[in-house]
């Protein structure tokens, strides 16, 4: 469904992505793990067109989207839930969800709203509240719910567990699995919480300094001693695989 070839991008003189290639098959959950500053968020942002790709290609569903403007991607079926949630702070929860469906046929709105609220019933009582007044966990739920309002075929999730309480983290991961199973939504997940993420993913990639250094199924990477050492709690203090 998504194929990235030799992708390079960065900011100004700094090249962050140094030739990334990866594939995400239809229906799977693919995970990208890596340390802070490895370029994971830059990869997702480059997929969305900001910063622009300097080299290489991004093909989605057989269509080259390397230079597609950001605002057209959602119309092709890609939803991006960025790092830091990016809730519109001075708009209500309902308005945030309406914006999630901005590019879509309005007649689906009621159904999609229902689906988002079955996933996150906590939001129901908050509909008239401003987004900026929600707690971190609620904001993350709203961000994912908003991303789903456009009925994406590919969902890009950037650090959905960042800064959340452990109980909420589990709820978020359960929901990701549910979205993948119920809606057959393909998911590309970026996570620092490597253990949880690898457990639910079909395929996984490890990113170090802007390059993919390791890939395999979720289970393979979960069992890999280097990955355990570098990215999971309780691992031995070893150097990052380079």
């Amino acid at each position, binding site marked *: 469904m998504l194929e990235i070839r030799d992708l390079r991008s960065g900011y100004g003189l700094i090249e962050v992505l140094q030739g990334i290639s990866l594939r995400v098959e239809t229906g799977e959950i693919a995970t990208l793990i890596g340390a802070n500053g490895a370029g994971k968020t830059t990869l997702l942002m480059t997929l969305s067109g900001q910063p622009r790709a300097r080299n290489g290609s991004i093909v989605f569903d057989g269509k080259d989207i390397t230079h597609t403007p950001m*605002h057209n991607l*959602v119309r092709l079926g890609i939803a*991006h839930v*960025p790092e830091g949630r*990016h809730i519109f702070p*001075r708009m209500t929860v309902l308005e945030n969800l309406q914006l999630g469906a*901005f*590019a879509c046929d309005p007649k689906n709105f009621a159904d999609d709203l229902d689906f988002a609220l079955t996933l996150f019933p906590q939001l129901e009582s908050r509909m008239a509240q401003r987004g900026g007044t929600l707690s971190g966990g609620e904001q993350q739920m709203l961000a994912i719910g908003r991303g789903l309002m456009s009925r994406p075929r590919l969902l890009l999730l950037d650090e959905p567990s960042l800064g959340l309480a452990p109980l909420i983290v589990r709820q978020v991961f359960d929901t990701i699995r549910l979205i993948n199973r119920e809606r057959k939504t393909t998911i590309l997940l970026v996570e620092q919480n490597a253990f949880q993420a690898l457990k639910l993913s079909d395929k996984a990639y490890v990113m170090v300094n802007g390059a993919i250094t390791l890939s395999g199924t979720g289970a393979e990477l979960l069992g890999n001693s280097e990955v355990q050492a570098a990215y999971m709690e309780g691992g031995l203090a070893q150097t990052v695989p380079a």
Partner: protein
Amino acid sequence: MEFLSRACAGGAGIDYFLQQLVNGVTLGAIYGLIAIGYTMVYGIIGMINFAHGDIYMIGAFISLVGFLLMSALGITSVPIAIAGVLLFAMIFTAVYGWTVERVAYRPLRGAPRLAPLISAIGVSIVLQNYVQLAQGARVKPLQPMVQGGFTFSPGGEFHVTISILQIMIVLLTLSLMAGFTYLIQKTPLGRAQRATEQDRTMAALLGVDVDRTISATFVIGASLAAVAGLMVTLYYGVIDFYLGFVAGIKAFTAAVLGGIGSLPGAMLGGLLIGLIEAFWSGYCSIAYKDVAVFGVLVLVLIFRPTGLLGRPEVEKV
């Protein structure tokens, strides 16, 4: 002190007060309509569009041309002529607003904040000189079209007059502001504008065409300024190419007074500036009315920099 007592000795009595109130509300309606354009553009791209006052001046000239066209077409009914000119002026002024953004501001998106500001001052100079060259530097008169009014005298001193034109200006402004508030609060375009204002990248990720939304903001601001231009043409009966400068600065003051970026603030600020100007002219010195208006601006900036309805810069996200 002698200066003040001489300057502020004005008349007294309820009738005089009511007359100044009527004049102030009318003036405030016009300032409010212009102020919306300043505050919207500031909200969405964080820039003071110094050319907006001149867009209003363009609106006044287009209205004048519209009235000439109407009489050339043989339309004698005043309501039809005004409605036709209203539409004509809104459309063509909107084209100016759109073009200014496209030519002078969009290429500077992402440039340091000072660059579009200087570009705006440049556009202002260009528009003034363009109209001066095309239309001449002398004032252009328009014969009074809407006459008549109501008089009453609750205090028995003299007749308070509310002209039909004043009523028309206030009603038109109120209905435009109501429609505009609905547009911003309830429609997809309004949501797209607020989303672009709050988080441009996220808005684009959700499918909002940011450039087009910014263009729409300029178009709406310019068409509201066109209405103000039409009303001022009818109200004062004379316009010139320099009209936009002082009115623009006053409307900008209104936007700052209300809280720049806040739409209800712009409307409230416009009303207050109109009232201050009318009452100062009525009770103190007409020569110093601009001093009073800008004195208020200074006080607001010192004691309440965010304006009356503005929000503080820091917000929990």
